[in-house]
């Protein structure tokens, strides 16, 4: 990973470099910085999340069911806010400020957690934290896209997601170290969480440049003599065939995508060993994700981001099959985690990169938010349907059924994308 002082966006008018040379150029400094912001913020949220179940039951007496309910509610609400974040970033042409607002809201929520403990407060804090997360995601991805070479968008998102995942792994580790050092002192964990959040906000506020992607695009257009387009971002700008196909394919695949928690559930239900090592399951997945995010990002830059995103779902087919496989095999369990990590590495950042590269820079925020919301909503539907299927035929067969359906849908999604633009930026 290279650090380079190159935080200005590459002129979008420049010829889109295909694969090879662009991939060897250093990763933009702003991308690394945004990765570090996410790393600090993930330490903050994941360290608190790791002890919240303990804290709520042992310390406050909130029933586990109430907690789960509250959480599901917020997931739905965050989709709306995510869209708002993307739209605001486009409309104001100030993605950094919108992202900063989101990060700051989450940091403030942690402060409240520290000073006013109580079950109702925790529920409120979780909600505000989700609002902040929803608000910041799309503008942050806009910044990543704006500070990267159009030809290496996939790699940039890979670098960001790798750093982000590192934070998600360090958070729980720090939390348990703290609880081990000072037993039963949850406030220490919340202090760590707040400190990490503040560092993340400071990093973003102080070092990340205030990029104006739309203005830069217009200036570049003038420079190259192309028609100057000063129109405000509108929904119609999203109506590009490439983007519609991308969202359609992602949404279609989302209908058959289970969250990793579900796959752990299947594993746990069939494998007592998996149950015992439950907290490590997600560490295994994250390690694979972390290791593969950048390579898959490069592959996506080379062979087409939307295509890699679609084909990456074959890893998920593999994960379903192996989760439903013979009970008690450790090798198979590890294979599952690896496949799941590979799935995330080839789809999560790649989807954002794909969305950013098929629309005009002025509407990248809305495009990324739309694509991510489509996936989030269809996955929610998948969770409900899978819940029913599980009840009817049991976890193993339900997972196999999902695998079979997904294996059929991947080629369909591929065909849907066939005429979509290949690698590189729109222009």
């Amino acid at each position: 990973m290279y650090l380079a002082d190159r935080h200005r966006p590459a002129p979008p008018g420049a010829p889109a470099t295909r694969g090879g040379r662009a991939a060897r150029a250093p990763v933009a400094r702003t991308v690394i910085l945004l990765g570090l912001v996410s790393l600090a913020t993930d330490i903050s949220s994941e360290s608190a999340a790791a002890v919240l179940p303990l804290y709520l039951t042992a310390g406050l007496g909130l029933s586990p069911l109430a907690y789960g309910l509250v959480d599901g509610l917020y997931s739905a609400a965050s989709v709306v806010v995510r869209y708002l974040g993307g739209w605001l970033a486009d409309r104001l042409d100030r993605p950094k400020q919108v992202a900063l607002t989101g990060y700051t809201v989450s940091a403030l929520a942690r402060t409240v957690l520290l000073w006013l403990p109580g079950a109702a407060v925790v529920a409120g804090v979780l909600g505000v934290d989700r609002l902040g997360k929803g608000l910041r995601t799309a503008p942050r991805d806009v910044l990543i896209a704006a500070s990267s070479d159009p030809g290496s968008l996939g790699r940039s998102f890979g670098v960001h997601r790798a750093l982000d995942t590192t934070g998600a792994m360090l958070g729980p580790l720090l939390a348990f170290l703290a609880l081990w050092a000072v037993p039963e002192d949850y406030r220490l964990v919340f202090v760590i969480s707040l400190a990490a959040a503040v560092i993340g906000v400071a990093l973003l506020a102080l070092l990340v440049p205030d990029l104006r992607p739309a203005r830069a695009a217009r200036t570049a257009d003038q420079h190259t003599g192309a028609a100057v387009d000063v129109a405000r971002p509108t929904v119609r700008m999203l109506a590009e065939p490439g983007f519609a196909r991308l969202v359609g394919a992602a949404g279609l695949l989302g209908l058959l995508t289970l969250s990793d928690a579900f796959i752990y559930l299947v594993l746990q239900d069939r494998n007592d060993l998996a149950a015992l090592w439950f907290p490590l399951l997600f560490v295994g997945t994250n390690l694979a994700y972390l290791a593969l995010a950048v390579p898959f990002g490069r592959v996506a830059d080379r062979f087409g981001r939307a295509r890699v995103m679609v084909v990456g779902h074959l890893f998920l087919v593999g994960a379903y099959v192996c989760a439903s496989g013979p009970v008690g095999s450790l090798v198979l369990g590890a294979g599952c985690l690896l496949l799941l990590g590979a799935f995330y590495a080839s789809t999560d950042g790649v989807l954002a990169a794909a969305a950013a590269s098929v629309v005009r820079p002025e509407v990248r925020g809305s495009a990324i938010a739309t694509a991510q919301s489509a996936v989030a909503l269809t996955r929610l539907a998948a969770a409900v349907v899978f819940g029913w299927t599980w009840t009817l035929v049991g976890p193993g067969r339900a997972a196999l059924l999902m695998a079979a359906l997904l294996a059929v849908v991947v080629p369909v999604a591929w065909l849907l994308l066939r005429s979509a633009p290949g690698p590189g930026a729109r222009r």
Partner: protein
Amino acid sequence: MSQRSRVVALAVVVVLCVGGVVAYAVSSRPAPAARTPTSVPSASLAEVEAVPHLVYRSTALGPDFGKVAMSTLADPAGPRAVTADACERVDQRGGTTLCLRSRPGVVLGSSVTAWDRTGHVTYRRNLPGIPSRARLSPDGRLAATTAFVAGDSYLSAGFATRTYVHDLAAGTAVHLEDFALTHEGRRITPVDRNYWGVTFLDDNTFYLTVAFDGRPWLARGSVSKRSVTTVRSGAECPSLSPDGRRVAYKKLQPSSRGWRIAVLDLATGSERLLAETRSVDDQVQWLDDSTVLYGLPLTGERGGETDLWAVPADGAGAPRLLVPQAWSASVVR
């Protein structure tokens, strides 16, 4: 602001944040001077065990924090005999001691251990999750444990319980989600079902809480039939009276006012709330057929400690402090 001064400002923020964490960690660490071990008069184990006594987890701050301790029923708050075993939940019946403790680390888990009168370990098993409840059957042959498992819910960050019934003599354990669940005459298998807080009538029949669709139910189970049947809604962590005719449990109060203890007469179905108005998050225990006891956490300077309180089981009277700095009691007569 120049790039250089921005970097300096960031460095200052980082130093302040890390320094703040370290300062807080050092100041909150129980320093010997600030949190003096509570001096509790000690008694010899043999003397206490020779007469009717209470067995509990001692929560007096100091070297004996978390260890299993005992004091006589005649003077429960008096001298206590402390053993070397640390347990989050402890139960003692029929000469068997059941100990549920956490295994700290990044992989948070718990372990179940049982030993006989001579201290010989008869059963040991590692389980996933954070220790929550542990109970023995009257003769000490069966044990039930509940642990909280993070992320066991399919809608992301929720968390769930895992409850096992252990046959200590046979050395086997069964996960209660493998039992058939019957609700309103129908066999159901909701994905979000959770079981917790088992109490045994004998070596077959038990009561417990089962929750699904966001509601907890009092339920009756059978080990031999591998079945659980719901009985009544809104009851958590039941505890059968020594005569087996009543069951005490905690009931969630509206508008997040916490839990009240209620006692249900199993024959007549009449329920009454007890005089304790503070929120009780514990599986209550019966001191005798007319009194229940339960733990309440302390706050502030004594955070981490808990006291054991007793209240009449008929709804009359008032709570009284039974054993300070104790938790998870069982009665041995």
